[in-house]
């Protein structure tokens, strides 16, 4: 039986024992790299989504904003005296975002570029809310964390140039724990909400999402003849998501659970066409638990080596 004192000590260690900052450096690189790649894919349609006369014109998208949102039309009003056109502003904004995300990727003046990148993404979410979906929400969450967490302490120019120290600190540990717990809660919510729907248990939701026009990538209507396939995949999804908070904290399970989550999101990307959504979810899990999983693999390898040499 664990005493209160022991529990307290374990909790203090868990949240504040200085941790290697490498996972946070990896998190910064993955998220800023993702933002750049996503923007590059967006670029050919940039004006159609964000332009004054895009699919949803500025007057309408601005009317959807709350008082605190920052729409590109507001920025245009601030700087229109310069003679810039709305299209020039929108294109210029794209390059501003790319430069900020590149600065963040390199870890040069990391905090400054993290704030600018987060702000740019906030403006994008405000300007084109109708076209945003899960991938943008998770990118906004990740950029917020990158902005407030000590992500420059590893693999950054700031570290190389001596502007920050690479020493493990309580701040690194707390940041990593917040990210890990947030991911656990997100998956717990996603998993148990599915469990509340009967159609998830019999596989029909999964089947419908695979065949309906919005997501259909291949003709999988034949799955109706083998309902156990859709049902097994549904159960796999619910279990992997709901018990993520268990699997990721048990060293013996962590690697398998991470592989399960990666497979799940690869499946979403491949069979539902939501490639960027699948990718950012993989990156978030890898950032939160990848380092620990990698250490588990190394530990297991060294154990195996010892066993072999011992025998």
């Amino acid at each position, binding site marked *: 039986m664990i005493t209160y004192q022991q529990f307290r000590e374990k909790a203090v260690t868990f949240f504040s024992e200085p941790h290697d900052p490498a996972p946070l450096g990896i998190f910064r690189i993955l998220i800023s790299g993702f933002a750049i790649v996503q923007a590059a894919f967006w670029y050919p349609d940039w004006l159609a989504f964000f332009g004054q006369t895009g699919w949803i014109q500025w007057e309408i998208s601005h009317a959807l904003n709350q008082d605190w949102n920052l729409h590109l039309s507001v920025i245009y009003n601030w700087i229109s005296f310069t003679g810039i056109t709305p299209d020039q502003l929108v294109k210029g904004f794209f390059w501003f975002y790319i430069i900020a995300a590149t600065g963040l990727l390199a870890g040069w003046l990391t905090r400054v570029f993290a704030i600018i990148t987060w702000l740019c993404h906030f403006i994008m979410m405000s300007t084109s809310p109708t076209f945003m979906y899960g991938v943008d929400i998770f990118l906004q969450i990740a950029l917020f964390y990158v902005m407030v967490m000590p992500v420059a302490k590893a693999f950054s120019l700031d570290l190389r140039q001596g502007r920050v120290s690479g020493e493990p600190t309580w701040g690194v540990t707390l940041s990593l724990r917040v990210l890990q717990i947030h991911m656990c809660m997100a998956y717990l919510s996603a998993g148990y909400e599915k469990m509340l729907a009967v159609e998830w248990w019999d596989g*029909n939701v999964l089947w419908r999402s695979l065949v309906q026009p919005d997501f259909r990538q291949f003709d999988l209507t034949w799955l109706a003849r083998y309902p156990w396939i859709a049902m097994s995949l549904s159960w796999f999804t619910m279990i992997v998501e709901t018990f993520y908070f268990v699997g990721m904290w048990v060293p013996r399970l962590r690697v398998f659970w991470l592989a399960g989550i990666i497979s799940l999101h690869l499946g979403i990307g491949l069979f539902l066409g939501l490639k960027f959504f699948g990718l950012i979810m993989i990156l978030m899990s890898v950032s939160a638990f990848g380092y620990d999983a990698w250490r588990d693999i190394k530990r297991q390898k060294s154990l195996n080596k010892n066993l072999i040499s011992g025998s």
Partner: protein
Amino acid sequence: MKKLVYTLAFIHLTLIGVVIFHGLDKVVHGGIMEKPLSFLSSLNYSVWQYGFFSPDVGKSTEVEINVYEDEGNVVQYSTLEDFEFFTANSESANRFYGFKVHTAADSVFQDLCARSAAVRLMNIHQQSWRINYIMRSIRYPTMKGYLNGDTISVVEFYNTDFELNPPEEE
């Protein structure tokens, strides 16, 4: 400083935890905390439920747009026929899923979005004089129903026209 940071982190995680278990539903949707929480959520989505893909993902929406041109041509676009709304890649096309869900949710918003899309198409098709914008909901049967021959339910729930300089009758 350390205490403050730990307190903020604790509040942040507690908020996420309470929200995902619907503990703040009444406060988030009305009440005096609605605006502050909405503001906070726009910054970091801490007031957000992650029930994505659950439970009713089986319902789909089609947008069909017919563009009537001066010469009598009618150009038909449909999200069911690889229209992809002129997007350069599938990632941009995916964004129209959100667009369809958002626009289907509210009738005023439907009108505004239809008008906005019509203006864009009139700019692209300079010879057009009329745009017909239709939305249909599509629902697939269950696997068992599908094997028993149940049909896919397609229901038109929105149909509107925008006319500009209708051609004079002969």
